């Protein structure tokens, strides 16, 4: 299966859009008509064919454009990619995980040959052909984590495990929903989750941490998170708030269907073999309201979820300014009919 990579932008003229196939495979995050935080963790097992869960690492039609956007972000702000010195082994673990997975599942696009430590990596969509020595940083043009994540969709955090806690000691974060690696780097699980409302009180983070400390090699898990973004902008970072914060005031009843996007993060977690670290991947998918309502079940359901969302959550996710206008738009696509259980379209 060859993917047709699109040429599109996530800034300035915002030409990003989803093909009809990309809409159908969108990881819609609501299996009910309401939403509240929970320890929504499941095994990261292969899902339905063509869905974003089919393979451990999902590469889609936006791949090339997203990698271009990441390069632009890194050029302006190198601190989006940081790694403390003790994370080098985990970086190499990540190189292995991503190269193996991409080459195995997308052989038309990526190829990996290994002979002992002599590795040969070919990335056709980005025109890269690299021979290197696994474990020897001097044989790559970038440090290992940066090298491979400049070629893989999604943000990545590498968490060291020590003293029964996880520490965000490395990462590359250029497509984030308003949080900063530069701020969080070196923090523990509960410290970096500090700003999240309500979830601490209902024990979500206690249980999630306990679960993650025993995460097993070969048994990755995943969860979905969501927020909303004005314009298809991947880089909604605190560092660049001055560029995108103002976008929230530009929504009108006329443009809401085109400007307002549901932003879903497919987050997966793996135990890494050599370092015993955990990698947390955050893969963002964007869909504008006009595209979302082409799936009637999703239009109905998202209307109800957004209408009834707890105000604390709406505030934390930054939806307050345009929520009502979006609910009004979606109301026109909700005839009140019952929705079927589960995430997938009818």
């Amino acid at each position, binding site marked *: 299966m060859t993917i047709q990579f699109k040429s599109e932008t996530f800034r300035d003229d915002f030409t990003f859009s989803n093909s009809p196939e990309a809409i159908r495979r969108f990881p819609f995050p609501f299996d009910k008509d309401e939403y509240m935080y929970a320890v929504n963790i499941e095994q990261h097992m292969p899902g339905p064919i063509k869905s974003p869960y089919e393979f451990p690492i999902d590469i889609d039609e936006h791949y090339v454009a997203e990698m271009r956007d990441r390069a632009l972000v890194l050029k302006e702000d190198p601190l989006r990619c940081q790694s403390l010195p*003790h*994370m080098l*082994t985990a970086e190499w673990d990540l190189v292995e995980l991503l190269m193996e997975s991409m080459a195995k599942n997308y052989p038309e696009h990526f190829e990996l040959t290994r002979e*002992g430590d002599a590795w040969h990596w070919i990335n056709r969509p980005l025109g890269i052909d690299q021979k290197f020595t696994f474990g020897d940083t001097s044989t790559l043009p970038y440090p290992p984590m940066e090298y491979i994540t400049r070629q893989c969709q999604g943000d990545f955090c590498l968490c*060291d*495990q*020590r*003293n029964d806690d996880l520490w965000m000691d490395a990462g590359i974060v250029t497509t984030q929903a308003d949080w900063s690696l530069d701020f969080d780097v070196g923090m523990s699980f509960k410290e970096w989750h500090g700003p999240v409302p309500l979830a601490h009180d209902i024990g979500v983070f206690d249980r999630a941490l*306990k679960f993650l*400390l*025993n995460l*097993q*090699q*070969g*048994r990755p898990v995943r969860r979905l998170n969501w927020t909303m973004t004005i314009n298809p902008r991947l880089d909604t970072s605190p560092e660049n708030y001055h560029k995108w914060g103002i976008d929230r005031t530009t929504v009108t009843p006329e443009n809401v269907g085109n400007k307002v996007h549901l932003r879903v993060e497919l987050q997966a977690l793996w135990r890494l*073999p*050599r*370092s*015993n670290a955990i990698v947390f991947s955050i893969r963002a998918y964007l869909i504008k309201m006009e595209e979302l309502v082409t799936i009637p079940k999703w239009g109905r359901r998202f209307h109800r979820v957004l209408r009834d969302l707890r105000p604390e959550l709406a505030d934390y996710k930054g939806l307050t300014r345009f929520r009502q206008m979006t609910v009004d738009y979606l109301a026109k696509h909700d005839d009140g009919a019952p929705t079927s259980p589960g995430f997938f379209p009818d």
Partner: protein
Amino acid sequence: MSGGVEIPVRVVDVEQATETVKRFRLAPLSGEALPPFSAGAHVVVTMDDHGRRIRNPYSLIDRAEDGSSYRIGVLRVPNSRGGSKFMHENVKAGDRLVITMPVNLFPIVRTGRKHLLVAGGIGVTPIYAMANELKRRSAPYEIHYAMRNEASGAFIDELRAAHGDKLKLYRDDMQEFVSVSEILPNQPLGTHLYVCGPEGMIEAILKGGREAGWPEENLHCERFLAPTGGEPFSVVLQRAGITAEVRSDQSLLEAIEEAGVDAPFLCRGGACGQCETTVVSCDGELDHKDHYLTEEEHASGKKIMICVSRLKGRELVLDL
């Protein structure tokens, strides 16, 4: 399956290291490389003793560079109910076993400035892997290895060859003992200590560390805790609707597995927390043996670690 992904292996070599310790080299049946592991990790080995399933955790010593094999070292314990006895008497080159993916409950702290590795007897197995990893990373370390006598030091030669004067031996029969007051002072700030060995040794070293003012976060241990026997009792698995007997030579987890219920586990040694189970009710006194639950949790009577703990009494009802 409840212990994670399983890997069928073939024993390709058995080496009698000392009178009571054998080393086993395990190769994957699939031919695919065994996954790399981080030093300090163990695997749970499943043995089939004529239909009786025995599962014991064993630390990984090393992995062949190309992933074609792992090595483990097994001490034959006196009065074994089966596990170490079976490994010593029945397991030969060519035999099949099943292991789990590696699990690490005794990792090296990567932010540490220096690492003191203390091993007693068979507790040397994870320490051996840690020393090799620290050497590979060119990190500062010392190895303190205690044993009954030189002949029972299963890893002396290999360790000496790899680590030279970073290795210090302590032979009981020569009145040499690891002394906390000698190894702890004058270590640089940010030094971490790791101890694995007999219970008494672990306690003494940890106590010495605390008394010398070391922070708790810098003291690490692994206990090769095994379930002990006890009086038999009944267990009721409420959700499964099953009642089973726990024999005196069986752990609670083993009896539950024998009854056909797959309960989660990772270490089978009371350390990881994976087998934590809610107690619905019990007619008797819970006999807690684990190092995972807090004292308050033990006292509350609401939780039990089924891999090592049991009931002194008649009947235990679990939420399983």
